């Protein structure tokens, strides 16, 4: 009985997850306010979600591209956020 309950809970969780993905993913849009954000703004807002904001001088221009990709895998940044932050850090 308990086995069935756990399985049922798991399937409910997976189904809820799928529905959320479909609903949320289907309505993805970016507001003007978000689109207008600069790389410096996004750098200040997103990096400190996990760690202190890095200094642009810490890595070279090529290195920042690589680090931007690595950070995207960790923090699930959007592509636009990654590109703007990396452009700011490469200056």
């Amino acid at each position, binding site marked *: 009985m308990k086995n069935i309950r*756990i399985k049922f809970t798991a399937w409910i*969780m997976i189904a809820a997850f799928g529905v959320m993905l479909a609903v949320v993913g289907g309505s*993805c*849009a970016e507001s003007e306010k978000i689109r207008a954000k600069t790389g410096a703004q996004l750098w200040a807002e*997103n990096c400190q979600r*996990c760690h202190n904001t890095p200094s642009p001088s*810490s890595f070279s221009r090529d290195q920042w591209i690589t680090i931007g990709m690595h950070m995207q895998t960790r923090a699930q940044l959007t592509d636009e*956020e990654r590109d703007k932050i990396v452009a700011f850090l490469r200056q």
Partner: protein
Amino acid sequence: MRKTGRITRSLAAIFCCFLVSLARAQQTPPPVDSSLLLRIEALEQHAAEYKPGESHLMVVGLTTFGFTATTTKTTPPGGLSQKQKTNTFGDGDTYELSPMLLWRHGTKWLVEFEPSFTGGNLSVNWANIHYFAAPGLDIHAGYFVLPFGIYSKRLAAGWIDKVAPDPTGIDQPGSDFGIGISGGFPLGTMKWSYDISLTNGLQLQPDGELQGIGLVDNNPNKTVTGRLALLPISNSCLELGVSGLYGGVGDAGGPYVNANATMYGFDLNFVKTFQPVLVNIKSQWSRMLVNSQQFIKPTDSSNYTFDNRSTQTFAQISLRPVGASSPVLKNFELAFRYVNYQTPMSSFWGQNYHEEDLGLDYWLSWRTVLKCTYAWTHSANTSDLTSGQNGVITDMNKLYLQFSIQL
């Protein structure tokens, strides 16, 4: 009248001389330093030869070391307490050297490999390849940290963590071999992200504990793990996450062929500056369940069963006066963390564990920190009565001095 004419003629002569000298000056270039010309030529040649290329390999990573002094008081039920004092440099929470190789090919492919020397053992934290297939779609494969909760994947590094030790029990479900997809998308003024993986999964031990199976799977079932997060505020200061895991955990053809594990959890991340203080709150709660099975007692190999359910919780707050006028004061950070870890009652590893950590950090740079953490832990043993440990209380006081740097 004659005098005026003479002056005019003289001025005209001077003007002519000036024009002639100017014309000569324009025709004859000034002498140039020949070594400067050679340097300019070399620089032009160097610039012409530079070609960035598509591949880029770099090494980053981190190192953490420190010192831990521990006082342990053990009290058996109805008995006298025993005290023990130890101190060490080589504690798992205070020593780590992990160089990380990041190898990029263009802007679509990325390989991440991080070997780690931790607590005297050489291991690998992750070794995987990512393909950025489309906006919001990162396909990855290899050995990676499972997308469950917020701590293991993002906050565990010594130069990120605000207190010296890791929260006990939060390392489940750990890392595994498999494939996954992840990405982030805007949603009006909000943002959401997903991270899902399909991996070999966990293995159920005869005493009821779970452990990572590693490279060779113990059954044909695969384990699904995922995390969905919403950042409801436009400046990304708040992140709310929900995680889940489900998979078969018994050996194929073994007594636990129908055993499966379910995990679910919630996490919260809030970071915002209320001038002059940066407030940083992080929290995670998770539960792990294994369906009902007959387990084997390690003492006499007889069968027994229990409600195989574990719960992990941590909540932490840290405050940093980033707006302080003093350059020294603004580098200090005060942190507090509460941890609770409950393993199944009446199992052979049952305990109810509490921990409070109070830390004072000093940031030498954005990625270099000195930490001083004092930890109080209290653990009540809730294991099976036949284990001989039921009711034992263990209290520990720990002082950590830790240095951590990201390189």
